């Protein structure tokens, strides 16, 4: 059946190629697109059921002492599972409205997912105990994780441009699924990579005993906040010439079990928002810049982080849309006067974790998605005319979340 499909595929692609050749369109490019239309591989994988892994298993894979067996199991799981999930992402793109799919940003990401799926697919049918290919697989994964690092800003740009072609409900559904799946895929991938590498470098492993793969069992929120605050201060000074002071108080000595990159991303977003609002508001009212206060609390089952600013708050009209994708309170770049300096600062703003300092409308919904992934929450309260409070509640990743499926 597969042979017939391939024959059909070839015959059709050749005939179309002939037609296109005659019309002076690049054959190669069209062959790629045509191949992906007729390629049964994607559908084949996308229709397989997902086998979720529980958080407990994911942690268990990496708990010392690391054994050959648990590593092999982890690698085998990743090898068979990731292609299925990637195929489903590809399918989701294929279901977008045609005009949206032709947007160059969105098309780029679509191609990226397709190629990633393609390159991992050949590992999925290998037997379980193939250690040599495990290392190769880990290298490949690492490469892919890096290539996918800037997916979200690119997608964000694409969807911003497509706002008028797609209704909000469908876009929200697509993005919710997309981001949720992406977090899961990366979690499995990065856990697998770090375990495979850790097993090869025993000494390194002993140094960072608090880590189980990418999960840090002794993550200090205060340290992460300091780190993100420094970064945001730099960004702010570069962009505005000055930055607010960050005051950190509460249970500063507390630690908990969490994925550091997730926490970093969320905090950077929140601190960026707070800093931007504070500086812009102070400048508008010609007042000195007030500090941004970050408080940490250690509860029985979760960690609370409150970011409190005096940035003027959010207007009630905007409040209802603040967690929508592509909703931004920053003026559209095209309408502002652009000169060489604004161009440079814009480029500078586009560096760093997660993307630009503001303007794409993805920061808050994305951060909230991360917060909710492990059963946490993000709540924003605004005192219009004064400032905002954002509450981040993050559950300890421990036994109680053991049954959470990734």
């Amino acid at each position, binding site marked *: 059946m597969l042979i017939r499909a391939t024959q059909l595929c070839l015959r059709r692609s050749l005939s179309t190629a002939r037609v296109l050749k005659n019309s002076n369109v690049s054959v190669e490019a069209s062959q790629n697109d045509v191949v992906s239309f007729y390629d049964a591989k994607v559908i084949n994988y996308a229709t397989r059921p997902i086998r979720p892994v529980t958080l407990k298993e994911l942690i268990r894979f990496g708990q010392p002492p690391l054994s050959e067996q648990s590593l092999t199991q982890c690698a085998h799981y990743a090898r068979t599972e990731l292609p299925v999930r990637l195929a489903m992402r590809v399918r989701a793109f294929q279901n977008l409205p045609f005009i949206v799919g032709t947007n160059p940003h969105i098309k780029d990401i679509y191609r990226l997912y397709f190629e990633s799926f393609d390159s991992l697919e050949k590992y999925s049918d290998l037997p379980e105990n193939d250690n040599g290919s495990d290392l190769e697989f880990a290298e490949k994964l690492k490469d892919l994780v890096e290539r996918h690092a800037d997916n979200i800003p690119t997608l964000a740009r694409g969807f911003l441009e497509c706002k008028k072609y797609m209704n909000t409900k469908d876009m*929200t559904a697509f993005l919710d699924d997309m981001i949720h799946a992406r977090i899961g895929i990366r979690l499995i991938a990065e856990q697998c990579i770090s375990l495979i590498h850790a097993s090869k470098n025993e000494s390194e492993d002993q140094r960072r005993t608090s880590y189980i793969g990418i999960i840090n069992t002794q993550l200090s929120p205060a340290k992460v906040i300091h780190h993100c605050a420094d970064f945001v201060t730099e960004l702010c000074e570069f962009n505005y010439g000055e930055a607010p002071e960050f005051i950190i108080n509460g249970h500063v000595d507390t630690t908990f079990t969490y994925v550091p990159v997730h926490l970093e991303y969320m905090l950077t977003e929140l601190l960026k928002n707070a800093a931007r609002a504070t500086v812009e508001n102070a400048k508008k009212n010609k007042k000195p810049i007030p500090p941004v206060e970050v408080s940490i609390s250690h509860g029985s089952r979760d960690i609370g982080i409150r970011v409190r600013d005096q940035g003027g708050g959010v207007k009630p009209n905007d409040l209802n849309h603040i967690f929508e994708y592509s909703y931004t309170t920053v003026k559209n770049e095209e309408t502002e006067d652009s000169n060489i300096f604004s161009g440079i600062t814009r480029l500078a703003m586009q560096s760093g974790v997660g993307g630009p300092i503001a303007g794409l409308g993805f920061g808050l919904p994305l951060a909230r998605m991360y917060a909710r992934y492990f059963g946490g929450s993000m709540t924003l309260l605004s*005192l219009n005319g*004064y400032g905002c409070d954002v509450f981040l509640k993050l559950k300890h990743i421990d036994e109680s979340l053991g049954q959470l499926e990734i």
Partner: protein
Amino acid sequence: MDCLSMFQSPTLGHQSFHTLLPFYSPQMLKAVAFQRRAFSMPATVRPTQSTSPPRHPITPPILSAEQKASSSPAHFYQNRTLDYYVEQRVTPITLRQLVFFGKRLNDERLIKSANYVRNELPVRLAHRIRDFQQLPFIVGSNPHIQLVYDLYWAAFEKFRKVPPIETKEQNQEYCNLLRTLLRDHLVVIPQLALGISECAQHIPAVHANHFMNTMLRSRISRRVITEQHLALSESSQDMNNDDATVGTIFTKCNPTNIIEKCIALIETRLSGTAKCPPFNIDGSTGCGDFTYISEHIEYIVFQLLSNSVRHTLQFHKHNNAPPPVNITICSNDTDILIRISDQGGGMSPEAYRDLWSFTSQRRFKAFETIPQMAARIAEEEEIPWSWQGQEDQHLGIGLPMSKVYSEYWGGELKIMSMEGFGTEAYIRIPRLGNQTENIDFEEAQEVEYVPAWESDERHTIVRHSSILGQ
């Protein structure tokens, strides 16, 4: 319309609902009688009165057998009079209308006001009586619920029989009637709260909370128009009219003053028992005056501040210098916002989830030990301390009541907690006075979050808010 005569038959006799389904065992009944004595108290805190709260043992008025509507077999058929009033619509008003009306008061307007109240009260009360009648039968059989039902029915009968008011003398009589009923109904809130909490197993929590919130809202609405009219009647006789006050409405409400007043009251009540934590007030302290029923805001601020103080003192028992309670005032074109932030240790997720619930058994935990205690009269002295605390606190009704007050003219009250650290309360009071009374309780509430991938409903319905991002 005398339905009674139709049904005086030997078979119906004098059966009363009370005997049909005893709600309690004898022990519980004794406990209930005990509580009735202890928990009647005024619904609004009037900080201008004496500093130490006098214990008002207002006993519920004793209704005769004929007056007890629920026990009368003819009551079902008398209900037809209620139908007429239930079908009429309520005329909600805005604060601005009240002020405008009250500022240019003359005799003619006073009579007009009296007739407005005269028409509104039976209609508003009728709607709530109908709510009672829709409760499950077992809930309606609860003695506390029945007491309130009987009180309401008696009041309804009195209200609807008042003839149109045409002279100031008639107005005076009407005002006297209003005053009596206001005083008699002071027991309603504790009775309802007790009743509903006892019925937790017979009614889904959602319905119970909806019922209570509607009751409380309507109660405020009736009291507002009643007290406003009473105040106007009194001031019309009083020649030195204070320009800033229009009945119960104060046109020079200032957040800083209100907060300072509440702080003073708390410090007085605490003096001698514990060291009061410091208070910091910041934000737009110099913001302009606005028009509101000052008492409402004072109630809310007082409740929240006393909660903050109580928790701070408890959490920092062993600390000589308890951390401060920070109050921030924010003023914009449309609202006054007050944020009260404490470091009182916050609350657990369970406590937070049940914050606004009227049926949570946790709140009334002390009552679980009553049946054993009341059975032995000598034990009465060993009442847990919490019963002797602040008036509303031992019933746990201060917070839900504050919420109802804040939402009455379209404001909000939100509470956020950081377990192990502290709690924040956000109050929003609209300052333009152009929103009508919120009498009916909307169904849309803050729904518990369900992740998008766990449910097909991508959009959960959340009530529109000017403080909470959605």
